[in-house]
């Protein structure tokens, strides 16, 4: 370019839109955008036309209407008189419940399995490998069916608990009833209750809040205590024992609160044809939870195994050569490095498990898909709204999880040059 002629003073020719590096990208982008918008408006127009022909324009008012159906497992107050919106909320909480308990169980089993998979005991590591290969190569829906039907076929029906000489009996000192309708476990009760706080959408019991406060306080104390231990270690080299003090800090205040509130457990009891009292984990919940857990565990086992194996043997050897003990090598050298590989895989498995929990609809667990995308959809005939809302809710759950994951990945990036 000449020193006095600015590039913009060149004569603009139409062909420059295609053959000038400055405009070509723009041309392409605008064409793609136009094509996309055309396609989008075509689809949207079809929807509006088709729905208008049926006489049901898009509106979400149906969420306020009375739902009129029962839900067998609820975490917050719900009756058939509640609204479809409330049914959706109940379904969402049920989805989150099964997803959360599945993630917890799969993580525990997966970490144990991953460590056993790397055990130098041939039998154990082969057994875990066999489990992984069997469970991950068969569809999860099939596992959910198998778990569900095995549970309902093998567990005794409530009827068998009746009579003077019953065929079935309760477990753990008559506190847990395992029936084919679900598992009844004892519920915590308080003889000196403090009541509930109304949060508008649901109630929160004050006892629960108190216990939570105790646990958080205990946890803060543990952090402080560990920091103190580290300080002493830094000053003198000897690390004081913290385990017992930490345990006491976590447990003692909670125990005191429990005693003060008159904590006792309410055992489920057989009344008529079914058990009453206690907490009921319905059979579909058990089947779904077991199926999801067993399937996802295999992926977590592989994540843990690959994470630990990705830390080169040289790291362990170097630490051994410095005289460190195996336990410390694991916690100070291997795990911090393995975690960078394990945690992103773990989070993406949590995401998969949450998405797979939508298979609840196949066995009648009342999750989000069964309520909003199932009965509510069928009763109101609002397919478009119900399914779009359903997808939007799942999308926001997924996005939340991936934001957490990105934040973690950015924080844990290894510094390389």
């Amino acid at each position, binding site marked *: 370019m000449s020193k006095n002629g600015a590039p913009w003073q060149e004569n603009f020719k139409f062909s420059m839109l295609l053959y000038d590096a400055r405009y070509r990208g723009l041309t392409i982008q605008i064409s*793609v955008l136009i094509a996309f918008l055309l396609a989008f408006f075509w689809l949207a127009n079809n929807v509006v036309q088709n729905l208008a022909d049926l006489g049901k324009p898009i509106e979400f008012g149906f969420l306020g209407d009375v739902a009129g159906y029962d839900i067998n497992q609820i975490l917050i107050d719900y009756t058939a008189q509640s609204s479809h919106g409330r049914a959706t909320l109940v379904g969402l909480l049920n989805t989150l419940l099964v997803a959360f308990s599945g993630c917890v169980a799969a993580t525990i089993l997966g970490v144990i399995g991953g460590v056993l998979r790397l055990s*130098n005991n041939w039998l154990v590591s082969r057994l875990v490998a066999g489990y992984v290969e069997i469970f991950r190569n*068969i569809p999860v829906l099939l596992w959910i*069916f198998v778990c569900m039907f*095995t549970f309902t076929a093998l567990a005794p029906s409530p009827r068998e608990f009746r009579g003077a000489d019953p065929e079935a009996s309760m477990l753990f000192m008559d506190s847990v009833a395992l029936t084919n309708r679900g598992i009844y476990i004892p519920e915590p009760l308080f003889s000196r209750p403090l009541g509930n706080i109304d949060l508008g959408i649901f109630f929160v019991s004050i006892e629960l809040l108190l216990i939570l406060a105790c646990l958080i306080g205990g946890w803060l104390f543990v952090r402080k205590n560990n920091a103190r231990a580290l300080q002493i270690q830094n000053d003198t080299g000897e690390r004081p024992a913290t385990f017992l003090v930490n345990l006491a800090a976590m447990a003692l205040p909670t125990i005191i609160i429990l005693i003060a509130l008159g904590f006792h457990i309410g055992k489920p009891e057989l009344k008529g044809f079914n058990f009453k009292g206690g907490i009921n984990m319905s059979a579909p919940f058990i089947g779904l939870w077991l199926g999801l857990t067993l399937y996802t565990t295999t992926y977590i086992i592989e994540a843990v195994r690959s994470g630990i194996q990705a830390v080169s043997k040289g790291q362990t050897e170097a630490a051994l050569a410095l005289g460190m003990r195996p336990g410390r090598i694991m916690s100070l050298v291997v795990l911090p490095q393995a975690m960078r590989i394990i945690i992103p895989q773990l989070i993406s498995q949590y995401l998969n498990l949450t998405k797979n929990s939508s298979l609840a609809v196949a066995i009648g667990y009342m999750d989000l898909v069964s309520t909003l995308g199932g009965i509510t959809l069928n009763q109101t005939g609002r*397919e478009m709204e119900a399914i779009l809302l359903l997808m939007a809710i799942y999308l926001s759950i997924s996005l939340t999880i991936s934001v957490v994951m990105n934040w973690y990945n950015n924080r844990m990036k290894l510094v390389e040059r």
Partner: protein
Amino acid sequence: MSNYEFVRTDMLPQQEPPSDTVGVIGWLRANLFSSFYNTALSITVLFLLGSVLMNAVPWVFLGIWNADSLSHCREIFASQYSDGREYACWAVVRDRWDQIIFGYSFGNLEEGLFWRPVFALLFVFVAITPILFPSTPRTLYLATFATLFIYPWLIWGGSLSSYLSIAVLIVAAGYVYQILSKYMISLFSIGLMLVFLILGLWLLNAPISALIHLILPFELQSIPSREISGFVLSITIGIVAIVASLPLAILLALGRQSDLFIVKKLSTLFIELIRGVPLITLIFVATVLLKYFLPKSVNLDPVLSVMILVTLFTAAYIAEVIRGGLAALPSGQKEAADSLGLNYWQAQRLIILPQALKISIPGIVSNFISVLKDTTLVSIVALNDPLGIATAVRSHTDWNGIVWELYAFIALIFWLMCFSMSRYSMYLERKLRTDHH
């Protein structure tokens, strides 16, 4: 100070290791009983394994294959075994295996249609050989192209000419692209080619089809989509999804890697949107909502709609696999292509994509495995995949009460397919790693 001097005059021969470190005893010591903790673990595991097998093995191997119904099975157990226990009633598998595998449409062995899915699968094997074994002659890619049309013909039936006319139009569109690309930038020639293809399918399809029918008057009994069922349905959805999603996936991957802002954002939006929702909601979209998105004149049956949505779903996941392949290529490849004067699409087609796709094959295979497993979800919208058929069989009066036998059979077939493919993809991954060094 020469007290260090030492010279070995005769070399020591190789010796046997101490007997307790090799052989069966050495192996057992090292792998099962190396410490107290390990010994305890081994014994516990052996005990648990033993007690499980003690129950499972007789159930499987003492099962009954010859019976008409579950109650008949139970009579046989009562008369044959005195222990009063129940064993597997494999008779249900013997009775219904053809339905579960070939579906209602091809499963009736007397009608003799089952050769069609079998041949279709054989064609698929021929079609993938040139992709999996690069040493085979490249003319085999012709077979791959042919399979794209023969497979649907064998499954859906009808006149061969209606499938071949589409093939002819696609080949013609390819020529149109080649001619146009001499005169304008590639993106526009691609656009015009698509316009040509759509117009051709709309206007020219019928006459060309009629013309071909004069030369090749082959016709098979037509099978409506909703009757395709069993493992044939699962495998067909899986294959259609993978094959049809590849072009879209490549475009999405290139789009997400590109530095054109709008293109990149649109690709990312599509991929993340699809990956963020469970497949079942997309299947609902297919069966419930798709009809609203299309003009009234279009009438899709549920199987086709599900195939379309599963294809979009797969495309988002495969796009990510291919993006990984693109990212793994050294940047020198792109620079070398630029320095040779290739334009963007030439560079992609000739240099970048062949390498990126090769690295992506293991990922695509594992995606195929997931799609195959995910096809079971269609049973939720009342399509008859193997699980749907199992539900139907279980509600039949003869087999009411059967649980594990049916699911075990279906699980076994899924396992055989998925396990062998996953092993193959692991082998490919290892091979790719060693090829690179």
